[in-house]
């Protein structure tokens, strides 16, 4: 009998690894007060924003690097481009107006196709700036605003942005939040008025093309009382030999009895340091749902946080993380129960392969006033081979005796028995393993709109099948 095993090889990411010639019209490297002023000037910030940026820089300079989690020593801040404006002159609302090379990039990633198929609106960011933004007319007519944050800053929503911008994620939160505050550029502003239910998702897509650059987009979403929205975020970048940095920030305000679903399929290239901060504030009876697929980057620190601020507020987090060769992905979530009868549900899967390290890290805090709250955390890990690693670090801080808290963790491997069973029906070993891993990640794929679920399954297949053919 043969005991030959199909070698699961390194990943063919050629699909995402194409890069365009850099033709940026403005590129700013490093980080000093002058540089921050220059970025601010380039963007035509209002005064308060310019001052805020400088304050953030000051905080950045006096804040230590995190001393926990995966190593970020490979990140050389002096050589990260903090601002790269693509040759596009301004934000476009017609796809045809986006410069051809940038348009080709997004065409290859299927962005405009997805918009035609099933989205209410799309934003596409290339390097530091949004190059395209569009919202369907019927959705705009209901009062929904979906635009780039810079335009919104100068328009009628300027004051609203001022009172919400980096209030959930203050620059003092950690060093990269401060960095973000100093050099942020691009990103989206979404406003859903009270009672408006946006039936089809809005999407933004972030693409970092320049070598050694940082992407610092800011996403600010406000969903008013009784309204609902599904927002989808996709990210990718080609691979360069120098480190890139992503230190974005997402702030979500979920009003009373409002619902916001925030889905992310992240597939940064394997030299990216993904130090992203996401946070949601949920008012009485409101609900935030995080759907998170992490596939790319060299190192990730990603823990979307939900603050359950009003009675009966709810949070659901569904995540899958796939760490392959050379990847150290530290992902999970945080929940703070700050009001009575709040509930949180966390359900994650992590997969590691080819020496990849996947760590699930969570923190659930139940404040004394969060009586009769509930929290259930379930995390499962799958190690595809013997050289990969998976860790689980769930923390709970429960400050009331009147709360119902549960936690469950499982770590496993692909069983030979399961592979044998599937193969005995005629599928190849590769296919059998891919089927098992896709099934393991189904908690996330079943929550995504069909074409994204297909995209995610394709990613898993790319990861599982390697560079054959």
């Amino acid at each position, binding site marked *: *009998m*043969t005991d030959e095993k199909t070698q699961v090889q390194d990943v063919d990411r050629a699909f995402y690894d194409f890069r365009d010639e850099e033709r940026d019209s403005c590129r700013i490297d490093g980080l000093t007060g002058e540089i921050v002023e220059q970025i601010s000037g380039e963007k035509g910030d209002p005064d308060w924003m310019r001052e805020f940026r400088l304050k953030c820089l000051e905080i950045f300079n006096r804040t230590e690097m995190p001393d926990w989690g995966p190593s970020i020593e490979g990140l050389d801040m002096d050589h990260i481009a903090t601002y790269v404006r693509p040759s596009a002159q301004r934000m476009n609302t017609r796809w045809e107006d986006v410069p051809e090379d940038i348009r080709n990039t997004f065409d290859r990633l299927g962005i405009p196709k997805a918009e035609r198929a099933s989205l209410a609106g799309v934003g596409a960011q290339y390097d530091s700036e949004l190059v395209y933004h569009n919202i369907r007319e019927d959705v705009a007519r209901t009062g929904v605003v979906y635009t780039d944050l810079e335009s919104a800053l100068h328009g009628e929503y300027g004051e609203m942005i001022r009172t919400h911008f980096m209030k959930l994620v203050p620059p003092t939160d950690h060093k990269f939040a401060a960095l973000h505050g100093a050099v942020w550029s691009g990103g989206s502003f979404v406003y859903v008025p009270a009672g408006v239910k946006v039936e089809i998702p809005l999407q933004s897509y972030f693409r970092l093309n320049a070598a050694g650059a940082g992407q610092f987009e800011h996403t600010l979403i406000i969903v008013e009382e009784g309204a609902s929205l599904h927002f989808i975020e996709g990210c990718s970048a080609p691979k360069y030999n120098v480190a890139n940095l992503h230190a974005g920030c997402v702030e979500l305000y979920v009003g009373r009895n409002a619902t916001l679903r925030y889905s992310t399929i992240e597939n940064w290239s394997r030299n990216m340091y993904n130090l992203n901060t996401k946070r949601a504030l949920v008012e009485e009876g409101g609900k935030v749902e995080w759907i998170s697929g992490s596939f790319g980057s060299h190192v990730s620190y990603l823990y979307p946080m939900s603050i359950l601020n009003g009675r009966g507020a709810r949070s659901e987090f569904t995540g899958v993380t796939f760490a392959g060769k050379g990847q150290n992905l530290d992902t999970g979530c945080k929940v703070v129960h700050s009001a009575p009868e709040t509930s949180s549900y966390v359900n994650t899967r992590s997969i590691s392969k080819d020496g990849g390290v996947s760590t699930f890290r969570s923190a659930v805090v139940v404040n004394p006033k969060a009586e009769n709250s509930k929290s259930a955390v379930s995390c499962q890990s799958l190690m595809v081979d013997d050289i990969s690693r998976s860790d689980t670090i769930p923390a709970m801080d429960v400050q009331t005796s009147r709360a119902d808290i549960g936690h469950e963790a499982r770590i496993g491997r692909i*069983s030979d028995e399961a592979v*044998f069973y599937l*193969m005995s029906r*005629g*599928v190849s*070993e590769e296919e059998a393993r891919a*089927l098992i891993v896709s*099934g393991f990640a189904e908690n996330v794929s079943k929550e995504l709109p069909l074409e994204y679920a297909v995209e995610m399954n394709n990613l898993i297949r790319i990861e599982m099948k390697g560079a054959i053919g």
Partner: protein
Amino acid sequence: MVANSLLKVSGLRASAEDKEILRGVDLEIGEGETHVLMGPNGAGKSTLAGSLMGDPRYTILDGTAEFRGENLLEKSVSERAGAGLFLSFQNPVEVPGISLENFIRTALEQGKGEKVRPWVFHREVKDTLATLGLDETYGERDLNVGFSGGEKKKAEILQMLLLKPSLAILDETDSGLDVDAVRTVSRGVEEFRKNEKASLLIITHNAAILSALKVDRVHVLVGGRIVKEGGPELIEEIGRNGFSRFEENEG
């Protein structure tokens, strides 16, 4: 000896966890024949079935197995399936994320290397489910997920009928089932036998599943060897006297 030999096993020795279980098995099955393999617990019946399919838990120590004149033991598990071998599992694993119907279609496409048209296939699944007296929604459920023991066995029979192997090995597919489920399995086996060229190797303790079938040959496996072969009359004899006669011979 056998006309149109399909499977020919000679001197097969195999071990599990360094313990030798099969100690020289000889067995031959011809095209279109129904064979029965009986034997006491621990005789090596499942080891034989698993070894033929390529179960990684078993190590082949010696001997040969030819399938249509080709060396079966050199092939990967999926190649064995592609060549027309099928094994029904006693306890099939649960795989979330893929429906029973889609899985069988994927397996057919990969095993035979040809495209199966989903709509045509869907109709065939529906018809086969009806033949088995199973609910139409069966094929939409995730592969074995949350299936009861009986449902899993029925799903195995469904796969056998749709994959159309040339030799199906049923490893105690009828054990632990209620009367109703045994009837479904029997109906599936009868349906399978309608193809005159298809062969069966049935491993069972239970004569009930065999009553409606024309059995060509019975093999008795004791202590890792075939100790007796004969016609269907052997089934009755074992039903009356058990295996003690063969075990004494063996000792």
